[in-house]
């Protein structure tokens, strides 16, 4: 299972094992991470699953869809260059070791 490190806004780090094929959002929610709201349940419709991807990992992720890019304009905390929606990040062995930060709030 790919390991993912989530760094909460207060700096707390959590390392999660998330099954391949799951989205990062699903992995975070099933591990009771409170910094991801995911109101639309992964529908790429709410922008409440915002994460900021470690710059070293950004290039390893498939490019965001047009819808994701548009939604990233509408996050509660303004996006950064390396922001993504965690429901659109599908985990695989290639992403083992992924590091992301959680924004201060999602709504």
């Amino acid at each position, binding site marked *: 299972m790919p390991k993912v490190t989530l760094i909460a806004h207060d700096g707390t780090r959590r390392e999660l094992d998330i*099954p391949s*094929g*799951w*989205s990062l959002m*699903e992995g975070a*929610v*099933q*591990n*009771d991470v409170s910094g991801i709201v995911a*109101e*639309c*349940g*992964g*529908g*790429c*419709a709410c*922008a409440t699953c915002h994460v900021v991807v470690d710059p070293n990992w950004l290039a390893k992720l498939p490019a965001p869809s*047009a*819808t994701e890019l*548009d*939604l990233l*304009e*509408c996050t509660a905390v303004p996006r950064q260059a390396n922001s993504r929606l965690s429901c659109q990040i599908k985990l695989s062995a290639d992403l083992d070791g992924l590091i992301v930060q959680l924004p201060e709030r999602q709504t």
Partner: protein
Amino acid sequence: MPPIVVVGAGQAGLQVVDSLRRGGYTDALTLIGDETWLPYQRPPLSKKFLLEEMDPARLYFRPAAHFSKQDVTLRLGVSVTRLNRTTCELTLSDGSTVHYDRLALATGTRVRTLPVPGADDPRVCYLRGLDDAVRVKARLVETSRVVIVGAGFIGLEIAAVARALGKEVTVIEAQGRVMPRVVAPLVSAYFQRVHESHGVRVMTDAQVQAVVNSGAGLAVRLRDATEIPAELIIVGIGVVPNTELAAAAGIICDSGIVVDEFARTNDPAIVAAGDCTRHRNTLFAEPHRLESVQNAVDQAKVAAASLLDVPVAYAQVPWFWSDQYDVKLQMTGISTGYDELVLRGVPESGAFSVFYYAGERLLAVDSINRPVDHMVARRWLLAGTKIAKHSAADVAVDLKSVI
């Protein structure tokens, strides 16, 4: 004020429990639900879950451990059969009783069943819960011909999935256009074209008279005697709010449990939230009953605030989305009473928004593959921002710059 009991472990029930704990309530808290699954997301059931290999555990709002950590007593797989407001007691289907001091009802809805002869055939399916979705998914695998009755959101989403799985799909709609209740005719026309271009046969103004099972196999018979062969029939003709428990206890219901803008019923100890309510929202003059994640979540927060005696009036803008193929429809506001439509972008481009106006007042916006329009419109509707029709219509105007 303990204990607080929440009936219905769906989107709204879960949110009530969550908001109570976040709001500092530390006493006894019980969440009762008649489904056996942990509380889960319904929207993916007619979308991703049907289409892909997907572990149901990916749909849970929270892992099981969350509830013990939060000291929430979860009672799943049991339904509340009686509410006694005199003794403040609930009777459960397993014969046990649960005492409450304050109660939240979040009982949701159930599907409206197809009221025609033959509809009790096991190949006639519905989609409301995870059990339904597991069943429909299994049946889809062994089916090549699917007939969908009802061209609402759920019917059309299933049609899109079934096409993606290579099935032959017919959609039957009683009214003259798809999604007739909620979107403007031009949006209906757009979605009908999208489905037809993906190979779905869309039949409007078509009334189902019976489900027949002759020597030739299963079929849907229409009022004009046309028979449409099917191996699987999926019905999506709307829902009925679960109000019986409340109504039998003398709580006022009017196709929905009637609540005020604080999610309070006529019993001061009882609030209600989500799909089951006919509610007040201070943004609107009329009461509404809505079926959406937004309403379940936001109204549940209001219900929790009332339970904590820090009432906050419900004043949130409704929003909703639907995914069909690669088309994302996002809706916000309530368009009832519009007198003019303003189009932003052109349907032919596959990305456009429809602004519903009453006079100069913006009521609602439907966005098709234009999420920014949707998000901005939500903010405007909440703030009551005036947005000139010419700005709405002009794709060169950056809506985010209009405050």
